[in-house]
C-alpha cells in the first residue's frame, strides 16, 4: 500500500519501524510525552490520529521530510473525517486535490496570498460566464 493511502496508524508505525535507530513503542511514547497504551492504540487505528502538535513533534523527532509530514496531516484528516464529505473524494484522492492541498500549504507559508486566490476564483468565474 502506498503511504498516502495508508491509515494514519499504519503510517506512523511504518515510520517508527523504518527509523535507523530501531525505535520502540516505548521510546516514541516518551519522545511524544504520551502513554504507551495511547500510542499502541493509535498505531492500531483504535483511537483517533494525533492532533497537530503531536504530528509536528513526531515529524521533528523522527526527522521526517516536509512531504512525509504533509502526508501525516492528510492521513490524520482522512481518519478523523474532517474533510467535508462532498469534496472528500476530489480533495483526498484526486490529482486536483493534491494540487489544492499544495496550494493551501503554500498559502499557509505565505507563498500564495489571498489576492492570488481571489484572482484564481475570478478567472474561473469568467471562464463560465
Amino acid at each position, binding site marked *: 500500500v502506498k503511504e498516502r493511502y495508508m491509515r494514519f496508524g499504519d503510517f506512523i508505525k511504518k515510520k517508527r519501524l523504518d527509523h535507523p535507530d*530501531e525505535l*520502540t*513503542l*516505548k521510546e516514541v511514547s516518551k519522545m511524544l510525552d504520551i502513554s*504507551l*497504551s495511547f500510542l*499502541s492504540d493509535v498505531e*492500531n487505528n483504535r483511537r483517533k490520529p494525533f492532533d497537530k502538535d503531536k504530528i509536528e513533534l513526531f515529524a521533528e523527532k523522527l526527522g521526517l521530510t516536509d512531504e512525509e509530514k504533509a502526508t501525516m496531516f492528510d492521513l490524520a484528516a482522512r481518519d478523523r473525517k474532517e474533510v467535508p464529505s462532498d469534496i472528500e473524494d476530489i480533495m483526498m484522492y484526486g490529482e486536483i486535490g493534491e494540487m489544492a492541498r499544495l496550494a493551501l500549504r503554500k498559502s499557509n507559508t505565505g507563498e500564495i496570498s489571498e489576492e492570488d486566490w481571489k484572482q484564481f476564483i475570478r478567472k474561473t468565474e469568467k471562464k463560465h460566464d
Partner: protein
Amino acid sequence: LIAFRWSRVDKKNHNTPVIKDAEIDELAEMLLRDYKPQLLKEPGKIKYEHFLESYLGANLEYKYIYYQEDEERILGVTAFNREKLPIFDRENLCLDEIMLDINSVVLDFYVTEEGREGLELFTGLHEGGHLWMHPGVFTKSEMQLSLSTSSCTGTSLGLPRNVRGSISRRIFSSRNWKPGLVKAINI
C-alpha cells in the same frame, strides 16, 4: 526470516513440536545468526521489540490483560489469528475487548514496570518463540475459522504471571519443552 520446520511432533496435541532444551538453544542461535550475527561474536542486549516487530513481523501491543480472580495473571499473549482479547481498561475502569490482528504479541503492563526489565525481555522473547514455532499448531485457515464453532480451540497462548516463577520453572526445567505446558487462553 528462517522458516521453522520440525519433524518430531506430538500428534495427540495438534502436532505440537516436541523440542529438547538443547535444541531450543540451537534454534535460538540459528535465529540470532540470521537476525544479528554480530551478537554471536560480541554478545549484547537484544532489543526484543525490534526482534519481534522487524524480524518476526509481529504486531506488538501493551495492555492490561484480563484475568479472572481465581486465575493467575497473564504476562503475555500471542495471537495467530484475528481474535478478541479481553483487557482491563484502566482509563475508564472497566473491562473491554480489543480485536487483535494476526501475529500479534501483547505484553501486560506489569512486565514494563520499573525493575522488571529482565522479565519484560524474557516475556517478549518467550512470546516470540511461540510466534515462530507454533503457527502450524494454532493458525486457523479462513475455512477453519468459518467452520469452527468450538470455544475450546484456543488459538492464543498466554504466559501466566507468577511472581515466584513456579510455572516458568515447570516449563523450562522439563526435558522436552512443550507449549502444552503453557497456559492457553480460550477466547
